[in-house]
């Protein structure tokens, strides 16, 4: 019997069902982050992974044209995770999307595992560009978008940035060149969780007014609640006809989102969860899942 593809399943869903599905996938990703945050070797970037859950869920399960059975499909959309320290969240999303079995993530960070702290295109199918050093992903995305345009290719480029890496000059160099070359086939998302390693971004180095800056650099700029699936779907919808600008989505998120004791805390930047912490986190995520189901059951 024909096993239906994800796209076929999606096509049969009502919009409400799709939104609930994407919210549930975000919970799945958070659970993966928590379990691997407990089991991995040496710790991971818990806070900045958890804040990505809805962004990755929406991109991989509703927006990106990718084929997990053929990761090198030439016409696929490209996603560059410029905040490469979000690799655990990315790998969870890729596994859930079918690029490789979820069980392969066991042993995260250990010798011999292809899965570790930062994104690595040589070792993980579906990762388009290695990243980890901040401020590299947007220039790479500019190059990818230029390549797509030279070939008059249909594929788009998506780049997920941390807010902290908007302190890097190279990010703003790429903001200039993307607008200069009118790369309307490029969409960037800033995971605006308002923390970098040392503390709140506005204390470390002020980024605001970020929307004004992005617009001044010539980008079509949208702001959205980065944990609101419906809002993200609308933000990622195609730009109005005739748009010649790259698109910037400032996604307001909560660092450590979904796990109460990690939310909005500098300390959640990096670490390893104790079994007790993981248990508490999974219980909270279980309640979140039940809440989504309860909403679905309501008339």
């Amino acid at each position, binding site marked *: 019997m024909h096993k239906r593809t994800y796209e076929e399943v999606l096509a049969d869903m009502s919009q409400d069902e799709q939104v609930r599905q994407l919210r549930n996938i975000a919970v799945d990703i958070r659970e993966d982050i928590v379990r691997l945050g407990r089991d991995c070797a040496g710790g991971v970037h818990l806070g900045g992974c958890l804040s990505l859950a809805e962004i990755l869920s929406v991109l991989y399960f509703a927006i990106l044209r990718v084929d997990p059975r053929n990761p090198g499909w030439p016409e696929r959309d490209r996603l560059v995770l410029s905040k490469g320290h979000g690799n655990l969240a990315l790998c969870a999303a890729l596994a859930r999307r079918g690029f490789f079995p979820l069980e392969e993530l066991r042993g995260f960070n250990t010798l011999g595992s292809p899965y570790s702290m930062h994104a690595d295109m040589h070792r993980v199918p579906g990762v388009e*560009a290695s990243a980890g050093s901040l401020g*590299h992903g947007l*220039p*790479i995305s*500019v190059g990818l978008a230029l*390549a797509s345009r*030279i070939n008059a290719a249909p594929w788009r480029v998506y780049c997920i940035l941390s807010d902290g890496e908007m302190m890097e000059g*190279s990010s703003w160099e790429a903001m200039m060149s993307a607008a200069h070359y009118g790369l309307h086939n490029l969409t960037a998302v800033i995971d605006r969780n308002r923390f970098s390693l040392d503390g709140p971004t506005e204390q470390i180095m002020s980024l605001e007014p970020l929307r004004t800056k992005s617009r001044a650099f010539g980008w079509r700029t949208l702001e959205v609640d980065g944990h609101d699936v419906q809002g993200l779907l609308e933000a990622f919808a195609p730009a109005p006809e005739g748009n010649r600008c790259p698109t910037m989505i400032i996604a307001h998120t909560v660092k450590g989102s979904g796990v109460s004791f990690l939310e909005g805390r500098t300390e959640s930047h990096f670490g390893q969860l104790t079994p007790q912490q993981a248990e508490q986190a999974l219980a909270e995520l279980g309640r979140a899942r039940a809440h989504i189901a309860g909403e679905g059951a309501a008339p």
Partner: protein
Amino acid sequence: MNETRSPYVGLSSRDAFGKALVEVGTADARVVALTADLGSSVRVAEFARHFPERTFNFGVAEQDMMGAAAGLALGGKMPFVTTYAVFASLRAAEQARTDVAYGNLPVRICASHSGLSIGPGGPTHHSTEDVAIYRTMPNMTVIVPADGVEAAAATRAIADLPGPAYLRLSRAKESTVYTMEDHFAIGVANTVRAGHDLTVIACGSCVGRSLQAAESLSQEGIEVQVVDMATVKPIDRQAIEEAAKATGAILTAEEHTVIGGLGSAVAEVLAEAGLGIRFKRLGLQDCFATTAPYEELLALYGLDARGIAQSVHELLAKSQTS
């Protein structure tokens, strides 16, 4: 073809690169050229005239350019990145190392105004660490052509590489070493003059001046072998060992700090081969160069033909007394 005099004779390495880039771009539509507001200076202008849709100026923003080159390569293109060597090796070093070299992407970093060739431009524009920096990057091929003919041959050769390459070009016109293009192969040293008393292993502009030094030394009865080590990485170990065994003394000459460049690469080979011969590295002796016209700087740091000949004398005297 092998008999033909190259049309690149008499051109500086950067001029030859610019012309050869048009050839390479004509042969392969994947070739794109990137520059950071130095397109005319690094001679990308001719490519831009032929292929405006494949030329991208990133403005004064080398990091963005290098990262975008990696992105273009990921998108199936063959980027030639151009800027001055000092910026290619320092300002954009991390993008070159992490995006290009770790990515093992077919990006060709073509860097002009290397060494002291910008003369009065001074240490802000001299590039005397670039070979050392690029040599340490895994996957990276490093080529320092001796003249325009070799630069053209190298430009064609790197186009065929599956991984990244650094091509070091000069602002100044090098003295002619080659009239034909058939000699060049990546990773193979080329003996441009035979001799039995000492070997000068040189790269870039120092090859031509080493030949001039060898001619003047010949008048004194000293016969110096000159080896053009255009590929600094991967280095031709066999050529170095043979030169050591045949002549028992090696002088390296490069327009670069003696730390980490050609001289270091040759020393590494000699030491690991257990060849304890007389040896000297000619180059900048762990200092920033001062400002002056190029030829005067070369003379000041002993990198002109007279200085090279003097170093040969010193090394040979050491050989006789030890």
